[in-house]
């Protein structure tokens, strides 16, 4: 009740100068929407990528070590550099990982032609029975052999591929290499340690028949049956294959490391973009400051009256700070409502998955944005409020 009259005076001042106050609030609206939307977008991006990646967190990826220069060792085998994983290296891996599943992968990329459309896609050659273990077909059947192929959903959408479609492969327009689509894969993102969304998956037999390099794998994935064994498996594999520490034969990684890198990248991206939002708040602060200074200079006479009949400096200050807070609340509230809308649209546009939109980790950016918006208002109201309170009552009474 005590501060009531000053809140009421502040409200009346806002109402009396509604347009001016709303324009100032608009700055806060924009600032809050900017930082909140960007925060929500970053959170949703991180959450959805993390979820995709951790579903494949039990995959160890082994690829040839390419840092040492090509053909240096010359002899192939377990030691020395090579662009591929050899058959003997594969056997070594199978030996050290024991019961865990080993998936040798042939891969390359090639020009593809579907009717009049030309593009590129990656080609993955896998054993038909492993395909059944790690991939999900939404339409059609799994690979049976011959020139049957599975295509990723993104690729299928881009080239309007259906079960039965034919894809011509190769740069030569007379090329006779082609596959027939037998199934469309479920969107996996990075499922099973393989990027299949834009890929054509064929049998290893068809792959080696058409692209050669039999027994020369581009990478080998090991799926750990127990996620806590990943470290041990990686160590054993490294010990067996990278005997020469100066000249390692293979690079071993898992999706956990990948996850960290991606989270860090998204994190710094988000904070950079949030800084842009902060700049809009600075602009808002300037406009609030301006409105408050105007409010003070328009009300000099009134301040003189209030002071002359016994209003303390601290009470005058309160009155103007309340005015700033009211403007801040209006702006922050409108900003919060708009942030839900713009955040949702941004998440649809950029992340493409709203499953995490209403989670606390994403929604927290709304109250956070509001608090920052209101704080901005209060801070920019401090100086005008002090100036109002410090006016000399006699001088102020004489104004107008």
């Amino acid at each position: 009740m005590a501060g009531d009259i000053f809140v009421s005076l502040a409200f009346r001042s806002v109402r009396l100068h509604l347009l001016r106050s709303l324009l100032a609030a608009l700055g806060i609206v924009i600032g809050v929407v900017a930082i909140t939307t960007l925060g929500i977008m970053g959170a949703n991006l991180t959450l959805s990528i993390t979820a995709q990646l951790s579903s494949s967190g039990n995959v160890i990826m082994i690829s040839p070590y390419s840092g040492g220069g090509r053909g240096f060792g010359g002899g192939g085998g377990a030691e020395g550099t090579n662009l591929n994983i050899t058959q003997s290296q594969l056997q070594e891996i199978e030996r050290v990982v024991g019961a865990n599943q080993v998936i040798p992968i042939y891969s390359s990329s090639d020009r593809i032609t579907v009717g009049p459309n030309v593009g590129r896609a990656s080609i993955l050659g896998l054993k038909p029975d492993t395909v059944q273990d790690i991939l999900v077909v939404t339409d059609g059947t799994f690979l049976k052999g011959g020139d049957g192929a599975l295509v990723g959903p993104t690729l299928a959408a881009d080239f309007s591929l259906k079960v039965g479609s034919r894809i011509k492969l190769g740069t030569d327009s007379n090329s006779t290499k082609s596959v027939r689509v037998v199934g469309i894969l479920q969107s996996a993102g990075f499922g099973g340690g393989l990027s299949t969304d834009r890929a054509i998956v064929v049998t290893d037999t068809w792959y080696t028949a058409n692209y050669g390099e039999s027994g020369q794998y581009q990478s080998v994935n090991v799926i750990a049956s127990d996620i806590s064994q990943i470290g041990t498996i990686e160590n054993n594999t490294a010990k067996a294959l990278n005997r020469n520490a100066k000249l390692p034969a293979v690079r071993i990684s898992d999706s956990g490391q990948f996850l960290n890198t991606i989270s860090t990248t998204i994190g710094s991206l988000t904070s950079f973009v949030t800084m842009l939002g902060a700049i809009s708040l600075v602009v808002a602060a300037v406009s609030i400051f301006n409105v408050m200074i105007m409010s003070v200079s328009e009300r000099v006479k009134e301040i003189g009256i209030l002071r002359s009949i016994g209003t303390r400096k601290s009470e005058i200050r309160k009155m103007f700070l309340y005015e700033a807070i009211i403007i801040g609340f209006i702006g922050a509230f409108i900003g919060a409502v708009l942030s839900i809308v713009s955040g949702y649209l941004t998440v649809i546009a950029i992340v493409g998955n709203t499953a995490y939109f209403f989670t606390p980790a994403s929604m927290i950016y709304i109250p956070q944005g509001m608090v920052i918006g209101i704080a901005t208002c209060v801070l920019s109201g401090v100086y005008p409020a002090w100036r109002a309170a410090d006016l000399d009552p006699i001088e102020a009474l004489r104004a107008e």
Partner: protein
Amino acid sequence: MSDGPVISLADVTKVYHMLAEDVVALDHVSLDIAHGDFIAIMGPSGSGKSTLLNQIGCLDKPTSGDVLINGRSIRQMNDNELTDMRRDTIGYIFQTFNLIPLLTAYENVEYPIILRDKTRAEREKILGLLQTVGIDEALAHHTPSELSGGQQQRIAIARALVNNPDILLCDEPTGNLDSKTGTQIMEMLRTFNEQGKTIIMVTHDTRIAGYAQRTITIQDGRIR
């Protein structure tokens, strides 16, 4: 309350330091005002009447000398103490009424009570006081801009009286009013003086000054 003067000015000098020269607005003024006095201050424009009233009204401090209100020295008071003095002990009535434009007549009168008691006033008290100064309930909910000068001055008087101050300071209270309304206002002030308020009033009008028991004339910052 002590038997001494309500207001006592001892050798009060007020100097305004201007760029070109120093303006001596009050020049060694000494004056005692007893409880229940009704004093008119007259003098030519620029003679220092408003400056004198501002010293008594705790709106300003003298350059030298001292003002005692109920025995308390205003030189010793800090800003909050001066402010509380204006709120509780002094009622100020201005030539230009000086109501708070954002508040209704009722709220203007209620405002000093909220300042002092930190709580809303009793409705009957405010309406009763407005009745005393001739403002009915229908007018009480208008804002100052919707009221005539005479009505505004009545409300300003009610506001000055609401915290039951010892002293009423009036700087040309009828200066912006026609003579009929002015007379009504003066009759009202005379009644409050009879009820025990000490009144100090600045005026240019000898007829208005006639309501006072004593007239002080001031010239070039000095009492004559």
